[in-house]
């Protein structure tokens, strides 16, 4: 997938920083693209952006604009919210551009109430005014601007409406007027902490009062920032005293409740609600998608369409045209002929066009076999993620995920994992607890095939029979559920019930889908081709040195005896260490030698086999070396155990 993040440039410290902040799924990334020309992944579900992205805005080449992950509320709680809070604390923040949802002003103002306390000049982009209008909601932007004391601009970011006005308004950004005074007891506590912060550890940009509210609200990033400040001792002592719960609410909940009240009062005065459309196709589809009965046929229908497009059209028709007709009949014979005529050193010619040749194996696998599959997958995936369907999957899947100690929110990274497990591992930051993240990452590393691998699997098994594909699906889902159930018993902590927003179903915009697909394919080509070439080089080296025949022989008891595969399949598992789809491609190349049982067993084993190197690096980054090593130590034996059991089980039946 395309990289949605960029590291802070070396010059970041001297650049003025502006940041887009707001709730999840309100259009921050679309505005970021409009204001900078830099494309970051944009989708119709909360949590698309999990890290801060940075680019130079078109309107000020001396500044730096940040696209921050959506925050449901501050103080921050989830990892993506913490990333936003870190940006607020550690960047030279000159202007905040709050992106709000015009059809839900109350929620927008709830966040404004806290941002206003930070004392940073602000502008509000009241986005999605088209959707608000369709629902009969009108916001008096002038009255709102007057009440807040900051410019408020109505925008429709997807269509570019209001973007010029917003750019102009940024120059008039002002520190917002406070939306509320908390009750007397809370105000006394806030004032106490505020004074100590002002005296002992003032922040260069953020107001002490805002930091006090966040610190009392137990924001972990503010806690961490305070811990690094030399004079913060007295502040932290006072904060430690302020843990008492008054009534039934904790301090953070009371602060949030009071902000909610103030936001509601202001929203009422500036919003008008006329009769909107009661029933639109989008609403109807949205309801059907989460209906307890109709949701399932809809899911099966969606899966079947994806199968037809990716498994049938991509993996059969396009791969047939490219691999067999173009590469097999035209390109590879021409390249082979050219190399053998011009390269006189036999081993070098073999390295390029031999059995384990860089062109005949590495490039052919990457371009003729995998590229058409991932292209069709990314297209289908882009349409689905922009439609808003993925969020609804979390409702349908919630009960099943409850069985494995997770809630339906985990379906999002898992579905994203079908595109690329590496990026999906990063997306687990939208999950609320470390336990949920650990279980989800483990299950993805074990049993979620990436698009390239999925395409190869569908291409091979679909060519054998529909039944073979069904057995593979049942085996993988079975392993996912059983392992998840076991993990939920072993990993300490409790399950968090699901509360989630369902964004409106929208017609995907072709341009956005194509742009995302293009970005993802670029990523694919950059990441996969070098790995495929390195893999081919390793295979060539092993073959020439005589190690490959030895490995094949050594692996025979496991591969031939236990898994029931031909001896050459050992080579596919060696390739699978680099990338699972590379390994799957190795099995695909053996398809004429495989029976139905062998094909299913081989594909199940390689699906459960080690995650690719990039995913492994991401797991190490997110969970640490120890956890990653432990995962690997469990995944490899599990893959061979399940493969062998399946082999012997299927042989009893067929």
């Amino acid at each position: 997938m395309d990289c949605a993040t960029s590291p802070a440039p070396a010059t970041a410290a001297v650049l003025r920083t502006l940041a887009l902040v707001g709730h999840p799924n309100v259009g921050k990334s679309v505005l970021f693209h409009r204001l900078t020309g830099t494309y970051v992944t944009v989708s119709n579900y909360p949590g698309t952006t999990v890290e801060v992205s940075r680019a130079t805005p078109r309107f000020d080449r001396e500044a730096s604009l940040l696209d921050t992950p959506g925050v449901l509320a501050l103080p921050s709680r989830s990892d993506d919210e913490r990333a936003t809070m870190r940006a607020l604390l550690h960047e030279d923040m000159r202007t905040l551009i709050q992106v709000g949802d015009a059809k839900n002003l109350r929620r927008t103002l709830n966040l404004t109430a806290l941002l206003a306390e930070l004392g940073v000049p602000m502008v509000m982009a009241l986005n999605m005014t088209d959707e608000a209008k369709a629902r009969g909601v009108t916001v008096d932007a002038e009255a709102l601007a007057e009440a807040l004391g900051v410019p408020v601009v109505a925008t429709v970011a997807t269509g570019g409406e209001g973007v010029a006005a917003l750019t102009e308004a940024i120059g008039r950004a002002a520190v917002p007027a406070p939306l509320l005074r908390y009750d007397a007891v809370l105000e006394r506590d806030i004032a106490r902490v505020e004074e100590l912060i002002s005296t002992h550890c003032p922040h260069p940009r953020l107001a002490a009062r805002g930091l006090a509210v966040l610190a009392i609200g137990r924001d972990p990033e503010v806690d961490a920032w305070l811990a690094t400040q030399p004079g913060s001792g007295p502040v932290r002592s006072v904060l430690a005293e302020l843990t008492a719960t008054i009534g039934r609410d904790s301090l953070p909940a009371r602060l949030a409740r009071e902000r909610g009240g103030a936001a509601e009062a202001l929203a009422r005065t500036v919003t008008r609600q006329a009769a909107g459309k009661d029933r639109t196709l989008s609403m109807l589809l949205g309801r059907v998608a989460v209906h307890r009965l109709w949701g399932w046929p809809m899911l099966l229908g969606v899966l079947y369409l994806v199968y037809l497009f990716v498994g049938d059209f991509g993996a059969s028709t396009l791969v047939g045209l490219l691999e067999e007709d173009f590469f097999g009949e035209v390109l590879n014979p021409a390249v082979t002929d050219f190399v053998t005529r011009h390269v006189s050193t036999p081993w070098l010619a073999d390295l390029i066009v031999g059995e384990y040749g860089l062109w005949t194996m590495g490039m052919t696998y990457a371009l003729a076999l995998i590229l058409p599959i991932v292209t069709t997958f990314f297209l289908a995936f882009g349409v689905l993620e922009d439609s808003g369907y993925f969020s609804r999957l979390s409702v349908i899947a919630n009960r099943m995920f409850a069985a494995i100690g997770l809630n339906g929110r985990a379906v999002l990274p898992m579905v994203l994992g079908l595109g690329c497990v590496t990026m999906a591992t990063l997306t687990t930051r939208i999950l609320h607890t470390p336990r949920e993240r650990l279980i989800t990452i483990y299950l993805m590393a074990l049993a979620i095939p990436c698009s390239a691998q999925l395409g190869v699997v569908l291409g091979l098994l679909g060519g054998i029979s529909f039944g073979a594909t069904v057995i593979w699906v049942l085996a993988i889902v079975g392993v996912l559920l059983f392992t998840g159930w076991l993990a939920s018993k072993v990993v300490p902590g409790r399950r968090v019930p699901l509360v989630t927003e369902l964004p409106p179903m929208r017609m995907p915009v072709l341009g956005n889908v194509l742009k995302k697909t293009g970005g993802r394919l670029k990523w694919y080509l950059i990441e996969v081709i070098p790995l495929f070439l390195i893999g081919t080089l390793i295979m060539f080296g092993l073959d020439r040195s005589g190690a490959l025949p030895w490995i094949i022989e050594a692996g025979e008891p496991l591969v031939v005896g236990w898994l029931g595969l031909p001896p050459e399949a050992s080579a596919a598992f060696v390739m699978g260490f680099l990338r699972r789809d590379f390994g799957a491609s190795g099995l695909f190349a053996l398809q004429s030698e495989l029976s139905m049982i062998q094909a299913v067993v081989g594909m199940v084993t390689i699906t459960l086999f080690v995650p690719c190197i990039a995913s492994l690096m991401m797991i190490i980054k997110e969970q640490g070396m120890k956890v990653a090593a432990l995962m690997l130590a469990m995944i490899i034996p599990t893959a061979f155990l399940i493969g062998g059991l399946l082999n012997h089980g299927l042989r009893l039946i067929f």
Partner: protein
Amino acid sequence: MNATHSKPIPQPHERIRLIGTPVGRMVRIDDFGDEIDPLQREQLHAYGLSAAHAVKVLQQQPMTVLLCEHVELAIEHAVSRHIWVQPA
């Protein structure tokens, strides 16, 4: 979707659980039960569910789905069971 239609219509000021509210009815949030975790309580506030706010119940199965100011929220029964509401 409307499996709960046969339930009696609550009278004004009668406090009922969100999970037991008939589909299609407008209700006002009254209170959150102690069973709801403080962090989840904050999350509910952040979504706009706070006392006296009116919401429309769209669905009760497989989860409670509400319309809260033009935004649909799905709430698992383990939580909606402990949200108390009054007829709007």
